[in-house]
C-alpha cells in the first residue's frame, strides 16, 4: 500500500510542478503576449492607444497589477474549476471546448499506434534476443536507423510515396470533410483511412526502440540461473522463452514507458502538423502561430496531464506485475 501511496504522492507533486511551470513561463520569459499582439496590430496599420492595451490585457487575463502570489492563486482556482480562458483564434470558443473537440483524435491515434508499436516491438525483440547470434540478430543494429529517423521526415516520405505517387491514402486531414462527424460506419471508415499514414509513421519510428530494449534485456536474462534451472527441469523451449525469459525481460520496457511516451507525444505533434490532422498537436501549433496564448497553455497543460495519467497507470500496474518494487517501497 505504501508503494501506491508514494506513487500517487509523486504524481501530485509532478502535477503541481507542471501547473507552476505553466504559470511561470509567460511571466519569466522575455516576450510579453500583450506587446507581441500590439506589435502585430500596429504592423497591420492599427492604432494603439492605452485603452487598446488595457483591453488586450483584460482579454488575455494578464492583469499584472496584482502581486504574483495572488495571480498564482487565481490561476490555480481557475484551473481547478476547469476554466482555461477563451481562445483568441477560435473566438468565442472556450479553450476547454477546443481541447475537448481535438483530444479524441490524438488519443485514438497515439494510443493505437503506441500499443501496436509496443506489442510488435517487444514480441520481435523477445524473439530475436532469445537466440542471440543468429543471422536475424545480426540485423538488429540496423533498426537504429528507424529510431534515428525524424518523425516528420518519415511522414513526408510516406506522404510522397503513398499519397502523391501511388494515391493509396489521403495526405491531409483526419476524415472526409463531405461526411458528417459521428458514429456512422462511413465516417469511421474514412477516419481509419485518413489515420493510417499518421499511425504508420508513429509505429515505424517508435518500434525500433521497443525492439532494441527488449532484445538487450532478453540477452541479459538468458544468462540468469533460473533459465538454466528451467532448462534442467526439461521445460519446453517455448515455455522457457515466454514464461521465464520474456516475462522478466519485459519489465524494464514497461518501466521505461514514461520516456518512450514522451517521445511519442513529441513525435505525434510534428506528425499531426505534416498531415494537418485535427488533433491536439496541430491545434498547439496553430495556437503558437496565431499567438493564442490561452489555448497554447491549456494544451500544454492537457498534454502534460495525459502523459502524467498514463504514467501513473503504468506505474500502478508495474507495482502489480513486479512485486519487488512494492517490497522496496
Amino acid at each position, binding site marked *: 500500500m505504501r508503494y501506491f501511496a508514494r506513487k500517487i504522492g509523486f504524481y501530485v507533486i509532478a502535477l503541481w510542478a507542471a501547473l507552476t511551470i505553466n504559470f511561470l513561463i509567460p511571466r519569466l520569459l522575455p*516576450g510579453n503576449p500583450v506587446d507581441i499582439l500590439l506589435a502585430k496590430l500596429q504592423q497591420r496599420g492599427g492604432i494603439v492607444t492605452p485603452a487598446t492595451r488595457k483591453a488586450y490585457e483584460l482579454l488575455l487575463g494578464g492583469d499584472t497589477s496584482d502581486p504574483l502570489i495572488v495571480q498564482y492563486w487565481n490561476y490555480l482556482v481557475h484551473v481547478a474549476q476547469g476554466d482555461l480562458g477563451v481562445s483568441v483564434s477560435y473566438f468565442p470558443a472556450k479553450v476547454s471546448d477546443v481541447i475537448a473537440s481535438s483530444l479524441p483524435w490524438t488519443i485514438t491515434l497515439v494510443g493505437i499506434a503506441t500499443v501496436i508499436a509496443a506489442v510488435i516491438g517487444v514480441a520481435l525483440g523477445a524473439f530475436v534476443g532469445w537466440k*542471440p547470434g543468429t543471422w536475424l540478430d545480426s540485423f538488429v543494429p540496423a533498426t537504429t536507423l528507424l529510431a534515428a529517423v525524424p518523425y516528420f521526415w518519415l511522414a513526408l516520405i510516406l506522404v510522397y510515396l503513398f499519397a*502523391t505517387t501511388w494515391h493509396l491514402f489521403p495526405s491531409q486531414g483526419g476524415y472526409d470533410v463531405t461526411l458528417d462527424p459521428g458514429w456512422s460506419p462511413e465516417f469511421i471508415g474514412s477516419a481509419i483511412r485518413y489515420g493510417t499514414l499518421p499511425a504508420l509513421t508513429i509505429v515505424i519510428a517508435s518500434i525500433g526502440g521497443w525492439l532494441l530494449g527488449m532484445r538487450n534485456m532478453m540477452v541479459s536474462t538468458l544468462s540468469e540461473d533460473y533459465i538454466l534451472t528451467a532448462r534442467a527441469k526439461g521445460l519446453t523451449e517455448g515455455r522457457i522463452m515466454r514464461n521465464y525469459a520474456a516475462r522478466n525481460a519485459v519489465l524494464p520496457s514497461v518501466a521505461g514507458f514514461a520516456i518512450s511516451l514522451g517521445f511519442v507525444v513529441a513525435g505525434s505533434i510534428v506528425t499531426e502538423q505534416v498531415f494537418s490532422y485535427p488533433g491536439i498537436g496541430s491545434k498547439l*501549433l496553430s495556437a503558437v502561430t496565431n499567438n493564442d*496564448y490561452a489555448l497554447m497553455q491549456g*494544451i500544454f497543460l492537457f498534454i502534460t496531464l495525459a502523459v502524467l495519467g498514463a504514467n501513473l497507470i503504468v506505474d500502478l500496474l508495474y507495482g502489480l506485475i513486479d512485486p519487488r518494487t512494492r517490497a522496496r517501497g
Partner: protein
Amino acid sequence: MTNIDTLTEPAVDQTTVAIATAGRPSEKSPRERSRWRSMLPSMTPWLAVGLVLVVGIILFGLITPFFAGDPNAIRDSGLMPPSAANILGTTQTGQDVFAQLATATRGSLTIGFLVGILATALSALFGILGSYLGGFADEAFSLFSNVFLVIPGLPLVIVISGFVPQQSRGLWTIAVVLAITSWAASARVLRAQTLSLRSRDYVAASKVAGEKAWRVITVEILPNLLPVLASQFVFAVIAAILGEAGLSFLGLGASNSSTLGTMLFYAQNGFALSLGAWWWFVPPGLMIALFGMGLSLINFSIDEIINPKLKNVRLHRKRAKAARKLDRGKAAA
C-alpha cells in the same frame, strides 16, 4: 627456468635475456593497454559502420561548406533535378541543395554537440551529486529529475518558443531550452549507478583517508561512470539534433540559423512534396537518420562495456564458431 639453464648453456641464456629485455616494454604495455581496452569498445563491423558514418558526416559538415558555394544564391534554374551542375538539384528559388545541405549539416551538428554537452553536464550534476550526498539532497534531486522526466519535453519547448519573440530566439536560447528538457532520463540512470558505486570499499577508503567530496567524486567515482556518460552524451546529441529539427520544421527554431530542420521547413512550405521534388526533402532527413544511426551504432559498443553480458554473448558466439570450424577441419582431415 633460465636460472637452471644459465650454468649449462650460457649462449641460450643470452638470447633469452635479450628476448626478455626486448620483450619487456611490450610486455608491460599490453597490460596497460588491456586496462584501457576494457574502457574502449572492441571493434565490430557495426561499430566500424557507425564510426565511418559519424566521422564522414562530421567532416562533411566541417569541410564542405567552404567550397560548396553560397547556399542562399538565387538562380533562375528553379526546382531542377540532380545534374552535373547541381549534384543534388535546386530548390524552388534555384538555390543549390548540396550547398544548403552542407551548411545545414554544420548547423545541426553545432546545436547537437552544444546541447549534448549541456544536457550531460546537467544530468551529471543532478544524478551524481545528489546520490553521492545522500539524504535530503538525494531525495530532492531525484524528485526534481523524476518530475522533469514525466513532463513532456517538446510541448514545453514549443510553448517556450511561442512566448519568446522571434528576434530574441537565438542559437543559445534553443540549445538551453533543449538541454533543460532532455537531461532527466540520464540523471536517473546516473543516480542508480552512483548509488551502487558510493558504497564500494575503495570509495569508503578514500573518504576515511580524508579526501574532499569533490575529489572523491571526480577521481574515484567519475572514471567508473565514463562509459555511461559517454553513452548518454551520444544519446543527448541524437535527441538534440532530432528535437531541433522538429522545432525548426515547425518554424520555431533559432532565428537566422540554417539547420537540416529549417531546410525541411522550406521544402515543406515550398510544396516540394506535391511537386515531387524528392531531391529537396530526402537528403536532409536521410542525413539526420544516418548520423543518428552512426551514433547509435557507436552506442551499441559502449553498451557492451556497461553491460558485459551483451559482450559475452558475442564472445561465446565467436568461440562456438571457431570450435565448429575446428571440428569441421578435423572431420575433413
